[in-house]
């Protein structure tokens, strides 16, 4: 009994354990990794992947997948930057229009995915694989694969923070951490992420729509029989995922200040890894918004850590691939083990 529950405990808290292991490992290799600036940077950078992972969670909960989020964030960011590159739009109303246009692009992108999945009844994997390629192609054709500079009026948002950390150390390590982390936590991208997390948490756990998403992921056929409008819920899930990708894309270019042709390439892998590490199952019906927060922070920690200890950049994707593999392996293991642990006991011995 004790051994069984220990395994259960380990599986339930795998992500936390991996997290600690990652921090200890990279910290031991490069002590600066655990320094205030580095941790603050991880928190801030995680918000971009995190916001998209939240959207992805909606889709994964329905037992679907969206591979096109990287291309979606590229196109959405492009809509925003294209508008801003017009000097007439480089003012407050212009910026508002540009942001809304970026978000609208993400919603439309998500709606296209939704249409193919729900109306044309094509497998989500294939649909979003296709829209991933098409989206990237469209964007490349439109920009002739050139980069777009983001004007300062928008680029300053990315580095805006409620509390600003002074450049020099305060002399007290605890204070340094406090200052750096509060700056990171109140940075605009982080605040946006926090808002998205709260909304997603409420929607998923406290609304009928949210509970229906879980129901569909558990058994779509039963959901239909229970009178749930499955098509509408699925459609909404893909649109929400598209919106998440757009929020991620638009906030990220405001930090980077330039839109490149490779913007968002491969991001879908980080996002799916983050969601799965956060406890969301690829088999549907299991997962939470808070899990996406934990998962994306972990993914970001691994990425930063690799930069810190100077892993060969060509090998970095392989390390990420290993993390993805581990995440999915743990998901499969967790699903089957937890099922066994829940086996009904017939006897009391």
């Amino acid at each position: 009994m004790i051994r069984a529950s220990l395994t259960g405990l380990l599986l339930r808290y795998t992500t936390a354990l991996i997290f600690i292991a990652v921090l200890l490992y990279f910290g031991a290799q490069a002590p600066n990794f655990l320094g205030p600036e580095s941790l603050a940077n991880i928190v801030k950078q995680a918000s971009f992947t995190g916001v998209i992972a939240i959207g992805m969670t909606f889709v994964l909960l329905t037992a679907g997948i969206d591979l096109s989020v990287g291309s979606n964030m590229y196109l959405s960011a492009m809509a925003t930057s294209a508008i801003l590159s017009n000097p007439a739009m480089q003012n407050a109303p212009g910026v508002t229009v540009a942001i809304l246009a970026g978000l609208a692009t993400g919603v439309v992108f998500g709606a296209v995915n939704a249409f193919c999945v729900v109306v044309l009844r094509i497998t989500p994997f294939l649909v979003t694989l296709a829209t991933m390629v098409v989206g990237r192609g469209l964007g490349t054709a439109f920009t002739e694969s050139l980069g777009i500079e983001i004007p300062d009026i928008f680029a300053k948002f990315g580095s805006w923070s409620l509390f600003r950390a002074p450049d020099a150390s305060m002399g007290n390590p605890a204070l340094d951490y406090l200052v750096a982390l509060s700056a990171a936590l109140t940075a605009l991208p982080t605040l946006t992420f926090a808002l998205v997390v709260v909304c997603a948490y409420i929607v998923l756990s406290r609304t009928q729509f949210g509970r229906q998403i879980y129901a569909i992921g558990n058994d779509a056929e039963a959901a239909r029989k229970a009178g749930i409008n499955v098509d509408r819920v699925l459609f909404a899930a893909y649109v929400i995922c598209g919106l998440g990708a757009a929020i991620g894309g638009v906030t990220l270019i405001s930090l980077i200040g330039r839109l490149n042709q490779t913007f968002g390439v491969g991001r879908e892998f980080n996002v799916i890894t983050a969601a799965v590490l956060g406890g969301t199952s690829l088999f549907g019906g299991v997962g939470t918004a808070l899990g996406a927060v934990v998962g994306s922070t972990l993914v970001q920690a691994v990425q930063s850590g690799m930069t810190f200890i100077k892993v060969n950049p060509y090998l970095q994707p392989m390390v990420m691939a290993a993390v993805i593999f581990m995440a999915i392996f743990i998901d499969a293991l967790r699903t089957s083990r937890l099922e066994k642990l829940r086996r009904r006991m017939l006897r009391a011995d």
Partner: protein
Amino acid sequence: MTDTVLSIRDVGKNFFGVTVLSNVSLDVGRGRVLGLVGQNGAGKSTLMNIVGGNLRSDTGSMEIDGAPYSPASAREAEHRGVAFIHQELNLFSNLSIAENIFISAMPRGPGGLVDRRELRRRTASLLAEVELDLSPDTLVERLSPGERQLVEVTKALQLDANIVIFDEPTTSLTPRETTKLFALIRRLREAGKAVIYISHILADIENLADDVAVLRDGRLVEFGVRADLPAARMINLMLGRDIDQLYPPHKSVAEPAVLLEARALSLRGVIKDVSFSLQRGEVLGFFGLMGAGRTELARILFGLDRFDQGELRINGQPMRNHSAEGAIRAGMAFITENRREEGLMMNASIAENIALASLTELSNLAGVIDGRTLVERAGDFATKLQIKSGAIGATPARSLSGGNQQKVVIAKWLMSRPVIFLLDEPTRGIDVAAKYEIYSIINDLAASGSSVIFISSEIEEVMAMADRILVMRQGEISGEFTRDQFRKEGILRAAFGEQEKVA
């Protein structure tokens, strides 16, 4: 009938070019229970799926309270006051009881958020109505099959429907739960609801129904008050011929050779000290209440679960934590209780399903399967077991009725030529005629030298079929009876345990 709630006029339906329902006309009255009977494949489920909005009829029309009714979805049917309690459970194991019941009608508070207190309150009062003593927040995955079935019933109550359809609701209920359910159905009737009750258990129909409708081959062959339709007449109408016996004659063909032997098999929390031996040609019955550990034992014998103590020998070979693959290689076959989820690939053709356990044999040296040989060989077994279907190479398994699906599962294992058959409730939910055919198959298997472990919760069935009965209770063997010792009372007493009163 004076007060008709639902009237069905000339309703018909075709599937894959086969007529499954033709010109059925029925009236269902307020405050009455209609018993709907027929063999598997007679069209009962199809008809009810049309009423419940899951299927659309090809011909005919329906009315509710005189207004035209042709639901396009389950949702629309619900809006018109029709609740359908399916035989297969439609519950979400990852959600709570309360969320399952109200999944498409949650009480909302400010801001459109779910009012969880109200949700709990309403669920608790519904659960009290079906006498289920559980917290509304309990996750469905923690419930027993019987409890799940009652939650399913609760879901229908919540709709406050005027027409309530029950499709084989008692298949996973314990006798106590069944009694509760029947009391509930009577209360629904008293409250003026119209109830349609589908079952193969004719005694229940006699017990509950006011009216009876009999379907055969998609046609309504009789519709009248129950008093005019005793069970014997229902059977004749269902079959279209007289049936003189429910079980084929028993002939013992067991030989002394032991094929399988278990010595003190134990798995902590599941089974304890299970010892028995199985002889060649023997039909060994396992009787017990639900949850007595029979299915769990079968899973262990077949290598799906491990055991932590004891010894298991198959053909004299000791098996230690073997796999299902090893069990199949040793000549075992396991026909599970849950054919929809475990036994069949619903979207694959009948032929592919039958051939599934024999693919190695059907492959040539390069490992390629010859499709034509596959269909031919599968066809032999389909004919042998009288599986009623269209072309077996093209018809998907899901289009078959329950009894025919069960035969496909049996055919699959027959084709792999096993010597030890584990049959877990092989006749559950199938009709009298299909049951008889399955009993005959069991006798043929034994006659050809195979051994059969026959798990059943129907005591008459085990007594008619088995050479020997082992009774299980709380994971242990609580009684052994040879054929000359078969007495209903003794077997039941072993199943219930001495201290409890025999039902």
